Every structure is written in structure tokens, then in C-alpha cells.
């Protein structure tokens, strides 16, 4: 079957930032593909290139075989796009917003009204469709933001961090929607910096950092990359520069990352290294006030690949 997206050698540079620095990937039709990466990794820039908001400095992307550079209108017509920032007319009602955006996707008349009704049902806003968007909660706005992308029943939906800044309930609602739409055959490109979301939703995950894809594969494939390493998270009550230096030397400890008092490290066998960690901390009169050991997951993978924790 034809691929939904093929990105080839995409680059986008700003004055002093290489926002996207040579990215290749393929999204197969019917799958949920996640781009996982911290803020500033370049996820939104990739989405903007794929959706033709601006052209890349190099490379091209193909949406169901249509070059976004050469046949932008064809390519755009096949996608529904959910921008990261809510992009709605606050002074119009949900219904008016949907009707307007539906027209931009070529819908007219009765079919348009019918689709608007369906989407309002889908996003659970049928009862409040005539109210101005400015009166909505953040979660409701997010849902309208997503609903717009569904109007023309696209084969591919591109969602840029659709769950940022909303309550857990709305988040759940959105994720269930994504899964349901995918079941009906919609291909989904989903970006997030929450590894739980990527893990739960995705058939395929690409991990991004600093404009590049550092690893890509199914969840199982990615986790295999780190081997038998545990991720240990500690809180160190004192300035731990010297402690950290010594910890790095402990046999079995691979990566150590620090963010204030929070330390994250990778260890082949956490049971074996913990006594050494405590001993060293004691030597420098530093107190370990909390400790948690995690089985390998995407967070571990990210730390393994980049030496940094994937933090919010």
C-alpha cells in the first residue's frame, strides 16, 4: 500500500538554530506514528514543513505520493491538521468556526452542514455549538481545534501536541478519539513530549532531539536499544557536583543527567550499583532524599541516546 508520508532529507534552518537538520522517515498508511521529543526538538517545525506552511531549505515530503513542494494543494487536501496552538475565531461559535473551515476544505451546502453535525457530536459539543468559542474552557477549545481537522474526512490527520495544557479528562477523551479514528482507517501523525502518550497510542515512534531523529521503531524495538538498563531517579539534598563526578565512575552506571536536585542515571543492574551510590554520597555528606527505579521505557531510551532526561 502507498505510504501516507515520506519525508526525505528535510531541513529547516533559522538564523542561529537548525530547527530541522536532515530528517527522513516513512509513515505507513493506517498506522499511528508519533514524534516524541522535548520542547524545542523540532517537532512543530517538521509538522509545518509536512503541511506546507513554509518550504524546507532542503528535502521534500510526499503525502500519499504528492510532493508538498510541487503539488501543495493536492497534498494539503489529503490532510487534516491540528496545530499546536489553538487556532480558532473566538468571536464565532463552534458551529460557525466549523462551517468556515469546512468551506476552506471544499465542503459546501448540505454535506457541509451534515459533517459539522457529525463532528460536533464527535467532539461532544453539540449542546453548546451556538456559543462563542471565547466562552469555552481550554479543553473545549482543544476539541474544536481537533474537530476542524476531521471535517473533510481526511485519510491522514496530523496532530501537533493536541493534549498540551488540558485536564486529564479532556486528554483521555482526545486520546480515545485518536484511537477510534485510527480504527476506522485514519492514518495519524502525532507529536508529543509525553512518553506515556507515545507509548500508549503509537504503532511507530520516532524520537527527536535537536532537529534530528535519534531513534525510530516500535516501542519494543526502541526499548531494546537500551539493553538491560534501569533508569534510576534520585533527589540529592545537597549540591552534588562532586558526588555526580564520582557516581559516573561507578561500574555499571552509564549516563548521568542533572536538573537541580533531580538526578537521573542509567545502570545495568540497579541493585548492584545502589550501595556504591549511597557510600559515595555519604563521603561527601550529601543526603539522598528520594529514589525510584524504573524498568526500561522510552524515557530510558531518550536518556540513553541523548544523555538528557526527557522532561516536561
Amino acid at each position, binding site marked *: 500500500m502507498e505510504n501516507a508520508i515520506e519525508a526525505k532529507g528535510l531541513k529547516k534552518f533559522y538564523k542561529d538554530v537548525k530547527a530541522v537538520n536532515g530528517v527522513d522517515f516513512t509513515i505507513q498508511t493506517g498506522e499511528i506514528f508519533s514524534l516524541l521529543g522535548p520542547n524545542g526538538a523540532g517537532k512543530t517545525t517538521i509538522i509545518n514543513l509536512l503541511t506546507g506552511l513554509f*518550504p524546507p531549505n532542503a528535502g521534500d515530503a510526499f503525502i500519499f505520493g504528492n510532493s508538498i513542494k510541487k503539488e501543495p*494543494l493536492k497534498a494539503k487536501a489529503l490532510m487534516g491538521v491540528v496545530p499546536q496552538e489553538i487556532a480558532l475565531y473566538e*468571536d464565532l461559535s463552534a458551529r460557525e468556526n466549523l462551517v468556515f473551515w469546512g*468551506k476552506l476544505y471544499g465542503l459546501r451546502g448540505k454535506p457541509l452542514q451534515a459533517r459539522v453535525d457529525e463532528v460536533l457530536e464527535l467532539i461532544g459539543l453539540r449542546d453548546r455549538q451556538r456559543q462563542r468559542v471565547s466562552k469555552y474552557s481550554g479543553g473545549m477549545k482543544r476539541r474544536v481545534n481537533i474537530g476542524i481537522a476531521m471535517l473533510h474526512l481526511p485519510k491522514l490527520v496530523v496532530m501537533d501536541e493536541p493534549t498540551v495544557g488540558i485536564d486529564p479528562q479532556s486528554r483521555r477523551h482526545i486520546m480515545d478519539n485518536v484511537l477510534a479514528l485510527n480504527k476506522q482507517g485514519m492514518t495519524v501523525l502525532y507529536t508529543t513530549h509525553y512518553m506515556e502518550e507515545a507509548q500508549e497510542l503509537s504503532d511507530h515512534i520516532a524520537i527527536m532531539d535537536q532537529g534530528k531523529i535519534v531513534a525510530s521503531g516500535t516501542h519494543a524495538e526502541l526499548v531494546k536499544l537500551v539493553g538491560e538498563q534501569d533508569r534510576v531517579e534520585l533527589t540529592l539534598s545537597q549540591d552534588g557536583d562532586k558526588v555526580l563526578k564520582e557516581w559516573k565512575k561507578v561500574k555499571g552506571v552509564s549516563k548521568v543527567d542533572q536538573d537541580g536536585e533531580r538526578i537521573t542515571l542509567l545502570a545495568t543492574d540497579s541493585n548492584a550499583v545502589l550501595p556504591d551510590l549511597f557510600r559515595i554520597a555519604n563521603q561527601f555528606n550529601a543526603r539522598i532524599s528520594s529514589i525510584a527505579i524504573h524498568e526500561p521505557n522510552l524515557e530510558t531510551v531518550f536518556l540513553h541516546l541523548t544523555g538528557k532526561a526527557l522532561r516536561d
Partner: protein
Amino acid sequence: MKKIFAIASKDLLRSIRSLYFVGMSLVAPLLLAFLFSTAFGGGDDSTAISNIAIAFVNQDVPVQSSPNHGEIVYQIFQTTGLKEMITLHDVANEAQAVNGINEQEFSAALIVPADFSQAVMEEGQTAQLRIIYDPAKSITPQILEAITTTVADGFSSSKMMIPLAMEELQRRGGQADEQFYSKLVERITSQSQKSSGVATSMLTVLNPQGQEGEVNDQVQQIISIIMVGMMIFFVFYTGAATSESLLQEEETGTLARKFVSPTRVRDILAGKFLGVLITLIIQICVLLVLSSLVFYIQWGEPGKLVLAVVALITSATGFGLFLMSLLRDTRQTGIVFGGVMTITGMLGGLFTSTIQNMPGFMEILKKLTPQGWALELWQLVLAGASYQQILLPFSVLLGMAVVFFCIANFRFQRRFARK
């Protein structure tokens, strides 16, 4: 094409829904025109132009045994009709009159020069009645000027006719004394007043009970001129304000969302531009209808009015888009609304539309702004000028509109095509 209309009509809906639009585009110009015109003594309120206090300085030195012609001027202002509107206060000299004007005691002064009688009586002599006025009040001097002009005209006619009349009377054995002479001058001048039409129509306002429902031309004209100035100002203002939505939408992400929909950049821009244009069409239509209902303004011949509307809305749209295309974001728009619109409006003469004979350099500055040309065009249309006369301001405005529009289009295309 359908998408262009979808964008434009969405923008129109948003404009009409905003209180700001209704306030700034429709209420403000009507309200201001109303306030200005009542301040100047217009509207339905006829008392507003009654009892205008005028200082009267009679320096006339009669020649030989002729009557004091200054006195005759005074008498004329005492005739019914004028008497209710204008009260003359005898003042000893010009300095005192100016003083009175400065102290708001008088709205203006009418000066009869020393050689006035001589000029009236003798062949080839000229002398002028002078009006000194408070520049802050602009209707009073206009009314006074209109009346005085007819008075002076009357004197000019008298000058020709009276010697003949006196000669004829004497030949028939009648007595051509001073009283007879004054009476004659008075009647001729008042006749001349009536035939000129200006003063007579003014009387209808003073005596509304006699001529109910009739509209006063002179005052009407002034209200329409004020209204034209206000309307042009606020149409340009609204042009800029609705163009601002391009910057707003760039910031709220809705513009980007349009760009990722299967819609061409040029169609999106065309839709936005059309939205501004349609908004202004609605605005101006409402203003024209309301102002003709409220102020009884007669907007002139439909064909010319359409040309004036076309020139005004296209230039206001072009100017607004042009200004917005120069700005980086909406934080900078204060410069446009607080500064550029007001300054260009002022230079264009929109706030001084009732003052004729502006200094020369002001006339030149006026011609540098689209508002100045718009004002000229609309005043010509109001005054019933011919198509030939309105051709120049119409073409200049349209030309300006095209230039502004092209620059704006170029800048926005470039801005949105490549980020």
C-alpha cells in the same frame, strides 16, 4: 473563488459582531458630525443660530450731504428675519471689537470702513465691508459673510440705480431727500438679498413655524461638509482597523491554518482584502442612509455618488492594507491608529473641512494624503460638480488605491510565502 468569498464573509461577520466596529465605524462619525454641527449651530435646532452677537463698528464718514451708509447697513440687519438671527452691538472701534471676540462676547465683527459712503456714492470708488471672526467658530462668519455679501451686492446695485432714480424723481418734481434715499437703498439691498436666495432660505430656519419641514440650505451645506469629513476619517480608520485582522490572524494562528488548508496564498489574501472592502461598503452605505435621514443631507446625483463611494472605499482599503503591511505585529498598530490616521486625516483637512481658504502650504499637504483628495471629491459631488470636474480627484484616488494595494499585496505575499 468560493473560498475567497468564504473568507471575506467570515471577516465581515466578525466585524459586524464587534462592538468596536459598530462604535468606531458607524456611531462615532454620526455622533461627532451631530456634535460639531450643533456646536456650529446646525441640525433642527433653529435657536442655535439665532442671536448671534456681532460687533458693529461704523467708521463711515458720509460725504457732502449723503446719508451715513454705515447706518443703512445697520438698518438692514434690523429687518425682520435677520434681526432674530443676528444682533448687532455698536462698538466704538476695531480694537474693541477684536477684544470682544477674544472674550467670547461676540462671534464676529462687521467693520464699515471710513470711505464706505464715498465708495457707494462716487463713480469708480471701491471700499470693502470687513468681517473679523473667531477662527474657532466657523459657521458664524459663513452666515455673516453670506448676508454681508448680499448687502454689498445690494449697495453695488444701488450705486448704479439710485442716481438714476433720484434724477427721475426730481425731474417729476418730487423731493429726493435723505429719507427717500435711505429707503431706496434699503429696499434694493433687501430685494437683492431675496433674489440671491441665500438669505431667504436662511429665514426659513428662523421662522420654522412659517415654513415647516423645509430644510435650510446654508446650514445643511455645513453639516454635510462636516459629515463628509467625519465619514472620510472613519472610513479610512475602519479600513486600517479591518486590515489589522491580517496581523491578528497571523498571531492567533488562524492565518497559518488557512495556509495549510488547500487554498492558494493569493486567494487567502484576496479574501482578506475583499473582506475589508465589503466592510467599508456596508459602513459607507449605512452612513449615507443614516446621515440623510438624521441630517437631511442630500448626497447628490447617484452616478457621481457611486464614483465617490468607489474611490473612497478603494483608497481607504488600499491605505489600510498598505499601513498594516509595514508593521511587524499588532503591538505596533497603535502608531497607525493613534498617529498616522489622525495626522493624515488632519493634513487631509478632514477636521477643518468647513474652513475655506486654507493657507497655501496646507492645500499642498492636503494633496499628499488620500484623505485630502477624498475630501475634495466628496465636496465636489456635494456641490453638484460635473463629471469632468470630479474626474481628477477620482482618478488620483483610484491611482493611489492601486499603488497602495500593489505595495501591500507585494509585501504580504512575500511575508507569507516564505517564512
